[in-house]
């Protein structure tokens, strides 16, 4: 896969995405503006105007079938980037070409109908909190069905077949398919969320800290599950985590973020075994 880079188009190509909250400085030429500073400024908040710079000039390419990890501490802008890519938020500047919607289409300027299509059919997301990704007022099977119904599935038996297929693959007992996820353990809720995200074979799956907050044995189960599914279906994944072992287990390539900047990017093994940036070195050593 890696050898074919030259001839292959990226599935998703993110270019110079910047997201700021607050009034913002007039321009990058402004003296003292955080956006003008090319290296890691050591903070997210601009001394000149008080705006928060959550992401600044983040670029990355994701190729079909690969898993890219985003590693960083809390406040590094990794979740903001993911929210921008799921179109929960609109970035201040930058663009992203997403191949399934046409090569020259900027993901951030699509109309609302296409946005909904992207969110319900082309991109799946697994939130850190299962409650954000699930509708707790409908059954586990109904949660999976929601995406299928949005993709114009209109046969109850087909929908139930597909839902039970994915729920059994994510090890949710099928006799609980028609129960409400509010009565499930958090690990099981997370597995329902994964089944929901994957059910209509999206082109890209975004994982936002999928195992944070789960106890260790459940974590291992969820990670194994994601790895198995990835192997079986060859899906493309962007996974965000502050947890090195999670990134190490899942990601082929990794970018490291801090204070809204990408400070290091490369093969995961290389990032974890031979980090170049002092902050990555600190992360790697503190994990060991």
């Amino acid at each position, binding site marked *: 896969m890696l050898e074919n880079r030259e001839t292959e188009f990226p599935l998703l190509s993110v270019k110079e995405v910047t997201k700021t909250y607050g009034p913002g400085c007039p321009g990058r030429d402004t003296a003292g503006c955080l956006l003008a500073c090319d290296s890691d400024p050591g903070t997210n908040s601009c001394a000149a105007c008080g705006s928060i710079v959550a992401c600044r000039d983040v670029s990355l390419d994701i190729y079909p079938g690969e898993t890219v990890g985003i590693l960083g501490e809390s406040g590094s802008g990794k979740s903001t980037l993911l929210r921008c890519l799921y179109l929960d938020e609109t970035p201040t500047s930058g663009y992203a070409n997403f191949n399934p919607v046409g090569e020259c289409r900027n993901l951030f300027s699509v109309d*609302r*109908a296409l946005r*909904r299509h992207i969110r*319900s059919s082309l991109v799946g997301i697994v939130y850190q909190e299962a409650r954000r990704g699930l509708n707790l007022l*409908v*059954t586990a*099977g*109904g949660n999976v*069905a*929601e995406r299928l*119904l*949005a993709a114009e599935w*209109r*046969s*109850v*038996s*087909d*929908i*139930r077949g597909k839902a039970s297929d994915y729920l059994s693959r994510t090890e949710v007992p099928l006799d609980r398919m*028609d129960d409400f996820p509010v009565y499930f353990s958090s690990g099981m809720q997370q597995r329902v969320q994964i089944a929901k995200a994957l059910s209509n074979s999206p082109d890209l799956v975004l994982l936002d800290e999928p195992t944070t907050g789960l106890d260790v044995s459940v974590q291992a189960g969820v990670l194994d599950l994601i790895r198995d599914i990835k192997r079986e279906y060859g899906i493309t994944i962007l996974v965000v985590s502050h947890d090195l072992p999670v990134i190490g287990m899942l990601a082929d390539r990794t970018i490291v973020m801090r204070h809204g900047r990408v400070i290091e990017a490369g093969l995961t093994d290389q990032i974890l075994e031979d980090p170049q940036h002092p902050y990555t070195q600190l992360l790697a050593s503190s994990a060991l």
Partner: protein
Amino acid sequence: MPTIAELIQETGSQFTGYSYAFLDSAATREIRRAMLKAVAIPGYQVPFGSREVPVARGFGTGGLQITLSIIGPGDVVKVIDQGDDAGVNANNIRRLIERTTGLPTTLETAEATVVQTRHRIPEEVMREDQILVLQVPYPEPLRLVERSQTVARTMHGERDYARMWLALYEDVVRKGEVTVGAGYPVVVNHRYIMAPTPVPRWDLPKLHRSRTLHIFGAGREKRIYAIPPHTDVYPMEFDDIKFEIEEFGGQPCARCGSNVAFLTERLNTDGSRTLTCSDTAYCDLALTGGQPETWN
């Protein structure tokens, strides 16, 4: 103080103090404009400035305003309440129309040019030169799944109906069937999901490619929508779980003996129950040997 009827007597078809058909001409014009838009976009809810009429909100003011703004000389009006011409509400509305226009009214579906109805569609097949006006309590079908009207309107705009389908799916999974009885949601012209007002399921097939113009008016909720003649109207149904109309086990009407009409249960004084036609005009016609064209 003279009554409106006296005023009409005094001035012939003209009368002072009130406009013809009660509504002032600006209101009539606005309601007609809303109706034109509704006909142009089948199933789309057009907002309109619902006026005060001498009937309480929630008692058919939407339907009444539509009727009053489309009728004129030459029209014959029929008003029914849940199939019944003799309902108190139907009587009041009929009388108001008579007094403010001097137009004749009728109990027979075939005679009417405009039929205003609540919760039923006549059994007799209506013609292209007739208009059916339906009184609407709740025009928003998405109310079932979305409380915010703003969000619901956006959902309509984007044809974002996955949650509505999900509600039906959940119904099927948990109860074995879609349990919506009256007011079963329909898809109009392959585009908008529409509330057909609380008519029984029995009446829904009548909407599909009907020869008659159907106009829906919600006075309290200030919405008008329409199904133009020959429009495709399908109930929301799954490929493998089909929409079904009510069954009466082949039992005929206890009064006229018809077995092609929607029946309602009537409680007798001795506590027994009999099933009779809900559409009383049809029942009367069948009783006197009439054989009108029916839907079923």
